[in-house]
């Protein structure tokens, strides 16, 4: 577990350094994910330790959002004042995004299989 965790942190650090060094708008961890992905392609896959540690970490991914979510207590005032536009915008926009993404993918995929048939 220790070696795997170290690997993840090293890739995150590399991503962070390059994102800041080159002033890229992409966050360091996302860049780190890409680097690790390419490393896995070259290495022919993760070892068991890295696989298990990542699985453990990702299994409780939702836990990691709890501290930031609790920050709502700081914004209760603004949220209270503007709850209607916030709620409607969040709900409609989230549903619209789900539907539009899925439709765009299905359309693109459907046309391709249509061509093949």
């Amino acid at each position, binding site marked *: 577990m220790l070696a795997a965790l170290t690997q993840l942190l090293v890739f995150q650090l590399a*991503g962070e350094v390059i994102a800041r060094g080159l002033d890229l708008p992409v966050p360091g961890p996302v860049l780190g*994910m890409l680097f*690790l992905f390419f490393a896995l392609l070259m290495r022919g896959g993760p070892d068991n330790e890295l696989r298990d540690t990542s699985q453990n970490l990702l299994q*409780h991914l939702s*836990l990691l*959002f*709890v501290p930031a*979510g609790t*920050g709502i207590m700081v914004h209760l005032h603004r949220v209270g004042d503007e709850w209607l536009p916030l709620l409607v915008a969040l709900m409609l926009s989230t549903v619209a995004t789900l539907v539009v993404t899925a439709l765009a993918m299905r359309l693109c995929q459907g046309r391709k299989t249509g061509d093949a048939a």
Partner: protein
Amino acid sequence: MTPRLNELWVYLSATPLLGLTLTLLAYQLAFWLYRRSGMNPLANPVLIAVAILVTLLMSTGTSYQTYFDGAQFVHFLLGPATVALAIPLYTQFRRVRAMFWPILAGLAAGSLTAVVSAVLIARWLGASLPTQLSLAPKSVTTPIAMGVAERIGGIPSLTAVLVIATGVLGAVSARWIFDAMRLRDPAIRGFSIGVAAHGIGTARAFQVSEQSGAFAALAMGLNGAFTALLLPVVVGWL
């Protein structure tokens, strides 16, 4: 409170131990409830854990800053967890490569929809400009969204909250929406939930299937990068 208890409280609230332990306890209670409900999306563990913590902190008069001094250790793990998403992505790589064009189409259409619809609806209903700008990056993962919000003139900490609300809404509603659309492909379901509802949607997708989860993780990464690059430009047009 008696003086002894008072002293104890002063000590506890000055160490990170309290915030950290409370976060883990609240989450485990929330996750237990979620399991008990048969993984009903309405019993979303993030939503329940946040509700427990806010109630607890406000009723004891504890500030968010004090809480976060401890909880930041959990928050920090978002970074390595994001890096770890490379592994499911690698496992599903063949399927991802086969779906290159649908992925590109879904990303472009979904990412723009997320930003434009949120800002326009909020403006139409009379939200203030900082609120509108804080809403714009709501569909991308917290660290990216906060960075983007700061750049375009939103309020980063408000954005963090809106991002999480979006994630919960997406995780709660996705199953019904996809079922109503008669959409069965776990790759498309996963990718769409990742574009709309970032890590919380991804967490939900992983609980349904590994393939859905991998596509959600891919979508989350791509949408984060895409939004970070495009949002400053798009907000100028709106």
